[in-house]
């Protein structure tokens, strides 16, 4: 299977989805990323990225139950797929391998 390439923001959202395992939905992802990155992120960008990743097969979704909150709307939870995990792994491997090639000398002592 071809592993699709992912962009930086996609990677961050995918990581969050993976980290929050089965409990990730729009607002929780937004809150977590805002906390980590210390900048505000609009919910619409999260929605767009999630949509794109569903299309690519990196995540899959399911609906939660109806509650009194959220105007009675169900939450849509996202779970990372095997392909998504592979993409993260690949990304991580590439980064680490390149990182390891940095000569110590380059930073001076």
């Amino acid at each position, binding site marked *: 299977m071809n592993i699709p390439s992912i962009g930086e923001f996609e990677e961050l959202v995918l990581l969050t989805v993976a980290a929050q395992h089965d409990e990730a*939905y729009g607002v929780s992802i937004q809150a977590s990323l805002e906390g980590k990155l210390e900048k505000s992120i*609009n*919910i619409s960008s999260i*929605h767009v990225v999630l949509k794109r990743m569903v299309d690519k097969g990196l995540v899959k979704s399911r609906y939660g139950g109806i509650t009194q909150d*959220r105007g009675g709307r169900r939450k849509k939870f996202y779970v990372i797929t095997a392909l998504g995990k592979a993409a993260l792994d690949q990304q991580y491997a590439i980064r680490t391998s390149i990182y390891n090639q940095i000569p110590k000398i380059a930073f001076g002592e």
Partner: protein
Amino acid sequence: MSLQPPKYSLKFLRWFCKDDYLEEIEGNLWEIFDVDSETSPNRARRRFTWNVIRHFRPAFIRSFSTEPTNYRDMLRHNTLLAFRNFKKYSGSFAINLVGLSTGIACAILLYLWVGSEVSMDKFHENDSRIFQVMQNLVRPGDTLTISSTPGILADALKEELPEVEYAASVIPTDWFENPEGIVGYEDQFVQAKGQLVQPDYLKIFSWEITQGNPDQVLADRNSMVISEELAIKLFGSTDAALGKALQWDQGVSEGTYQVSGLFKTPPSNSTQQFDVLLNYDIFYQRRKEQMDKWSNSDPDTYVLLREGSSKADFDAKLKNFARDKFEAINGPEYLHYVGVLFSRKFSDGYLYNSYDNGQQAGGRISYVKLFSVIAIFILGIACINFINLTTARASRRAKEIGVKKAIGAKRGSLVNQFLIESLLVTAFSMVLGLVLVFILLPAFNALTGKAISLGLDLILPVIGITVIVSFLAGLYPAIYLSGFKPVGILKANVIGKTVDGFSTQMVRKGLVVFQFSISVVLIIAVVVVYNQMELIQTKKLGYNDENVVALKSSGKLYDEMETFVQELKKVPGVINASPFGHDMVGDYGGTTGVAWPGQLPDEKIRFGNLEVGHDWIELLDIELLDGRTYTDNYLAEEDNIIFNKTAIEAMGLEDPVGQTVRIWGKDRLIIGVVDDFNFASLYEDVAPLFIQLYPDLSTVLIKVDGQRTAETLAQIEDFHTEFNDGLPFDYTFMDDDYQRLYESEQRVSVLSRYFAVVAILISSLGLLALAAFTTERRQKEIGIRKVMGSSAIGIVALLSSDFIKMVLIAIMIATPISYWFAEEWLSSFAFRIDLSWWYFALSGGAALLIAGLTVSLQTLKAAFLNPVLCLKDE
């Protein structure tokens, strides 16, 4: 839950967002809003709206098109279904086809007729700038509008008004007592219509000069320009004509002229029809004394305005143009002899030809409008049949619609399906309709006196009518049928109620009432028009025009008229003969120059003036009330005069015979008084009139023996040919001339008869189908009723009463409407029928009878059906 997100933002989100994402997005936004609103409600609302706007991006916006993407397949599917439906329900298909094709054929015929009326005279290149100068002769209470103008007006206008590019005086063919002159070449004589025009005439109008130099053909008073048609008649070809010398005989314009050019014969959509053009100067020079007066009106005046100049400015300058000229020369005393001038667009003259007291008052345009409306109504009636049949039989389609909707068909695609069905029916009807038009066109042309042919320019209107009709007929059923709720119709036992509810039945009944109202209005119109035409044709005119031949005089006959008349009386079969200067159908002289004993200082009466031979009163059987008629001693009778009854009453003379009046400054002795007779059209009351003896006149009236008319006419012709050196024998029957006066009314009468028949036919067709449908649906009920002992009559009454009620309502609506229209139309006649109640009763009764017969065709069948047959199954 205290706070709600902003309503409109939420609505907007729900409107644009794809269903797949809406729940997730809305929920998340709502959650953010809830959190935010704990700190600041305003900020929360702002952020909510902002977030909604941020989501307005292609990824989430849904598709707004309801069209399926597989157009070709859907089209094939719908067409196939339509054909299957036509086959399955061939009865209602046939009724729709017949109704629509008849309606369309009527509409196309009327479209062609209206088109040809409207295009009259529009073909000139400068059409928008050609104006005719008209004249209002202002008299207290009765202003007369005429097209003749002073003979020096055109030149003065061209010289003095900067707006005028070209101006021409024209003596039209009908200025002459006999519009046909005679062209002679060697020993050939041919009748031809001649106009005398100024050279600018050819610059104003776009007549095509095919030979000769257009700037020179009318340069001098010897030139004559003739039509190609006339050239071919005289010389056999168009090449031999130039330079030939021709004899021309027509009143003042007679003489020998040289052919200086040829023009293409005017097309049939031109009101100006002529074969010969001569220089206006001939006419002007020969009548110079009158022509130089501003108070005299002979020629028509046409102008071509410069580009960019306005009619309003021109009219303002034109208004008192002739009056000012007259006043400058003659002073103010007789100023009322001169008219107030105004301009009329030349090509409007044909349709807007009627004036009432100086104001434009319709004319042919009213018939054009009338028939356009009738065409639309007839199409409407045909569309209503389609609408009623489709909605009445909706239950048959209910299952189909229900299933389609249940498996996901959108309303739009169902609407498409039904529209395609109506488009197909309309297209078939259009083909049939065109075939009908093709078959009927010769008869229609004969009826309307037109030369309409079918051409390619009909393609656009044909497509237009097809599309419009299919929408008119198909839109309501399509929207109605596609609006069914699938759950309701799939539960079989409630179909009747869901599908054919109270409101649709009301719509259907309303439409039937509308159809029959129109039919009844048309029937009443036919009855009224027919009776009025009967009145006109049989009205006692005050004279007897039976077997009276009117012979136009020319040549030797004109010069030696008295001899001719005396000789003519010896021809066997000729009962009487007399010269006559007019025609009894609108042509008569007129003057206010009469002074009588006891006249008040300012009192003026307009008198009609007929110039006649001495036997004229006897020939026409006009009743003499007092005194005597003229003798054949012209010299002795020169100072005598005869009045009609109205004239004597208008002047207030007691014991008139023997009294003296002054006419044009000459004393005249009243020798007789005749009873009133109609010397103009029946649109006008009989006016005061004097009859004077005059030796040389334009026409000879001949009373012949009705038993051997053809034989006598042949003998008169022989005698005429011999006497008049072979000039053509050109005669009409006087009663024919009279009929011709009411030609347009006759046409309206005949046309309205046909259209009324078509309207009632199509309406009845629709009623027939509706009745068939209702009866079919109530078969079980009828069966049970019969079993229970109901009589056949009772069942017929039960089934028919609904329809009869509708027709009765239609009659109630139609009666006042048609009463109003009939009054309007009749009020233009001075001699008219009174509207009596039985016109309306007759028409309503006829409609009721036709509707009743139509419905009973179906109901009788149902009533005599064996109840076993309709109750056995289920």
